[in-house]
C-alpha cells in the first residue's frame, strides 16, 4: 500500500487487478477507483497509460498484484447465534469470519433467541451489525410466529423494518395450508419465502443419507424423498398462489430436475446450494465424523454431480455458505445426538473455486452465484462493479493453495466439514464501503 505525498482526499486506486464483474461479463486487467464509500470509476483503461506515476497525487494506491478483484461476496444463508446463543458465535465473531472469507453482505436466518419474528429483533440485529461495522448483515424474518409453523408472522411490518425475505430457517414450513397462505399473503407485498425443503415426518429421527454406509454404521436414514416430496408439493403451491419461493440448500438430483422443470414453465422459483453439496458426499462421514453431519445430509456421489450440473446450467441460482456454528459440546457426541451443520464463511469462496480448478464451471459463472445472483434476488444494492455503487470488493488469489485447519478458523465455532482439505484460492483483501476490513498478512 502506498500513499502519494500530500494525501488529503479519501480516494483509493486498486491497480494491477484482474477485474471480474459477473453481471456484465467483464474479465480484464485494469484498475478501480473509489472515493469515500463509492466506486467512482473502473475499467481496463483506467490509469492504463504510464503506470503508477500517472495516478494523480492524493490517491491512496493499492497494488492488487494481478489478483482477481470482484464485487464483494453476498452470502444469502448464514446462521448467526446472536441474540441468544453467543457461546457459539456472536455478530462480531461471525462478521470477522465473514470478512476473512471475502463476504461483504450476509443474510441471517431468524432462528435466534428471541426469534426474528418481531420488528424489534430485526432492528436489534441491524443495529448490532452496524456497530460492528464489518460485513453488512441483513435479517430474514420468520414466516410463522416463533417458527412454530402455525400462525403467520407480521410479514409486511417485518419487511418494512428491514427483513429481506421470510423463512422458518432450519425448519420447513411443513403445513401445506400455512405455506399456501404465506405464499399468497407475501405476494401481496412482492415478498419472497425461503423454504428448507424437508418433509419432517420422513426426516425426523434421521442422521444421514440412507444406504450402504448408513446401514453399516447403524445410523438412521433421512431419505432423499423428504426433500423431493416437499419440492414437488411447494412447486404446486407456487402454481396455485402465484407466490415467489426460493428453495435453500438443495441436495438431490431429483429436486434439481423438478426445479429445472418448474423454472422452464415460468414459475417464480429459485434455489441455492451450499459448498458441501457439490464438493462432498456421504462418504465424508466415514467413521462417525459428526462435523460431516449436515442438514440436509450429504448425499450420494450421483447427487453431488447433479448439484454441479445444476450450478453450471443455472438451475441452481446461488451458492450460499449455509454457515451453521455449533460448539464443541454439540458435536462431540454420538452421531445421532450431535447437532447438524457446519461453519462455512471462510471456506465459501475456496471450495466454490474447486469447480473452476476442476474445469467444471468457469470463473465468472461461479462468481455470479456468489455475487450478483443473490444480490439481485434479494434486491440488495451489492454484487456488481458499477459506478456510483458502494465499494464492496473482494480481492483474491485464485491459485494459491492452503489447507483447512479447523483450529485456525477465525469463526468462534470450528465445526467445518472441510477440516484437513487442501483448497486453492485465498482472499487477499476485503473492502466494505471503500474501507479495507480484512487484509491477508501472509
Amino acid at each position, binding site marked *: 500500500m502506498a500513499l502519494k505525498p500530500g494525501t488529503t482526499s479519501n480516494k483509493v486506486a486498486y491497480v494491477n487487478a484482474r477485474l471480474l464483474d459477473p453481471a456484465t461479463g467483464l474479465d480484464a486487467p485494469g484498475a478501480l477507483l473509489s472515493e469515500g464509500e463509492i466506486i467512482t470509476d473502473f475499467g481496463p483503461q483506467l490509469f492504463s497509460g504510464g503506470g503508477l506515476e500517472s495516478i494523480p497525487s492524493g490517491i491512496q494506491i493499492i497494488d492488487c498484484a494481478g489478483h482477481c478483484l470482484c464485487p464483494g461476496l453476498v452470502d444469502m444463508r448464514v446462521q448467526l447465534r446472536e441474540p441468544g446463543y453467543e457461546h457459539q458465535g456472536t455478530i462480531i465473531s461471525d462478521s470477522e469470519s465473514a470478512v476473512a472469507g471475502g463476504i461483504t453482505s450476509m443474510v441471517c436466518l431468524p432462528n435466534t433467541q428471541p426469534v426474528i419474528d418481531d420488528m424489534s429483533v430485526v432492528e436489534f440485529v441491524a443495529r448490532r451489525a452496524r456497530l460492528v461495522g464489518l460485513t453488512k448483515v441483513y435479517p430474514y424474518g420468520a414466516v410463522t410466529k416463533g417458527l412454530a409453523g402455525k400462525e403467520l408472522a407480521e410479514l409486511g411490518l417485518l419487511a418494512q423494518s428491514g427483513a429481506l425475505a421470510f423463512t422458518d430457517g432450519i425448519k420447513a414450513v411443513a403445513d401445506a395450508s400455512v405455506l399456501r397462505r404465506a405464499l399468497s399473503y407475501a405476494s401481496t407485498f412482492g415478498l419472497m419465502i425461503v423454504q428448507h425443503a424437508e418433509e419432517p415426518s420422513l426426516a425426523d429421527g434421521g442422521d444421514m443419507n*440412507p*444406504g*450402504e454406509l*448408513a*446401514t*453399516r*454404521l*447403524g*445410523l*438412521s*436414514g433421512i431419505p432423499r424423498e423428504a426433500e423431493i416430496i416437499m419440492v414437488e408439493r411447494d412447486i404446486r403451491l407456487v402454481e396455485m398462489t402465484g407466490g415467489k419461493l426460493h428453495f435453500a440448500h438443495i441436495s438431490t438430483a431429483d429436486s434439481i430436475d423438478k426445479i429445472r422443470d418448474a423454472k422452464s414453465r415460468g414459475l417464480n422459483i429459485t434455489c441455492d446450494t451450499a459448498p458441501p453439496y457439490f464438493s462432498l458426499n456421504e462418504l465424508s462421514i466415514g*467413521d*462417525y465424523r459428526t462435523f460431516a453431519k449436515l442438514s440436509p445430509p450429504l448425499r450420494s456421489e450421483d447427487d453431488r454431480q447433479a448439484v454441479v450440473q445444476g450450478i453450471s446450467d443455472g438451475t441452481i441460482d446461488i451458492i450460499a455458505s449455509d454457515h451453521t456454528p455449533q460448539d464443541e*459440546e454439540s458435536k*462431540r*457426541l*454420538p*452421531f*445421532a*445426538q450431535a447437532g447438524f451443520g457446519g461453519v462455512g464463511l471462510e471456506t465459501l469462496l475456496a471450495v466454490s473455486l474447486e469447480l473452476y480448478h476442476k474445469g467444471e464451471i468457469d470463473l465468472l459463472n461461479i462468481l455470479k452465484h456468489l455475487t450478483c445472483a443473490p444480490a439481485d434476488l434479494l434486491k440488495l444494492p451489492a454484487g456488481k462493479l458499477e459506478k456510483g455503487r458502494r465499494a464492496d470488493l473482494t480481492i483474491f488469489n485464485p491459485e494459491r493453495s492452503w489447507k483447512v485447519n479447523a483450529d485456525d478458523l477465525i469463526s468462534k465455532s470450528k465445526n467445518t466439514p472441510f477440516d484437513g482439505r487442501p483448497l486453492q484460492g485465498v482472499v487477499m483483501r476485503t473492502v466494505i464501503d471503500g474501507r479495507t476490513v480484512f487484509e491477508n498478512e501472509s
Partner: protein
Amino acid sequence: MTRKAADTTQFPHRHLLGIEGLSSSEITLLLDRAESYVEQNRQADKRKTLLRGRTIINLFFEASTRTITSFELAGKRLGGDVINMAVSASSMQKGETIVDTAMTLNAMHPDVITVRHADSGAVKLLSEKVNCAVINAGDGKHEHPTQALLDALTIRRRKGKLAGLQVAICGDIAHSRVARSNIHLLNTMGASVRLIAPKTLIPSEIEKMGAEVFNDMDLGLKDCDIVMMLRLQTERMHSNFFPSIREYFHFFGLTYEKLANAKPDALVMHPGPMNRGVEIDSEVADDIGRSAIREQVEMGVAVRMACLEILTRNISDQSQEKC
C-alpha cells in the same frame, strides 16, 4: 520375547469395537481361546489368576441383565477386579456427556472398559478418550461383537465348522446390532448369510454387506443349516413397522412348520431375551434337539473371557514397549 510379542501380532487391535475389520485368523484366535475356557467353566473351580490386579469396568448406558452378568463372570473367573456401572438415562440427563464419563473413568486407571450404549458409534467415541482397552458390548444399531463371537463358537461346536454353512437371520434386522456383527463375522469366515424380514425391517442396501434378502420365511429358510431369530421390540409396532404381534407371528414367527423348510438338523438360535409367541414358538425354543439357545449363553462367558485375556495381553505388551 517372545511369546507375548508373537501373540500381539496375531491380534493387533487395542480395542474390540466391532467384527468389521477383523480377519478370519483373528476371529479364529478368539474362538480358539474361548474354546479353551468352555471346559474350565464347567469345572467346580472356575477361577484363574490371569487378570489378577487388573480392573475391568462394565459401563452400561442401556439396561442389560444377561450381557452384564456374562461380562462380570468372565472378568471374575480370570481373577480381575470387576465393577459394574449401570448409568441410567436419567443421570446422563444431568448433563454429563459420554466423553466426560470416559475421561472420569480413565482417570481411575482401569485396564478394560466394557461399554453398552444406545447410540451407534458411541463406544468408538468413548474409546478415543481413554488409555485402556475398550470392548463394545453393543452400540445402538451398529455392532455387538461378543454376541457374534459367541454365536460363532456355538455353531462351530455343533457343526464343526463355519465355512460353507447357510445361515438365516430372521426378524428385526433394521434395528439389530446382532445381525450386523453376525453378517460381518459369517462372511469373513466363509458362511453364507440370508436375511428374512418384512420389508419395513430390512435396512437399505444391506445386501451390499454380503447377504441375500428374503421377505418370506418358507423361501428364506429353505435348506438352511442355522436359523438365528432376533428379538422383536414390540414397541416398534407403534411406528408402523408391522401392524400387530399376531400378524407378525403368523408370517415371521418361527414354528415347526416353517422350520421344516430348513435342513433336518438345522440349529435354532436366539440372542435373548426371547419373546415367546412373538418371534419364536415356545415349543421350538425349548426343543433341546434343535435349539442351542441355552448353549449360546454358556458360550458367552467363555468368549468374553477370551476377549478380556487377549486385549489385556495387548496392553501389557504395549506398556512394555513404551518403557
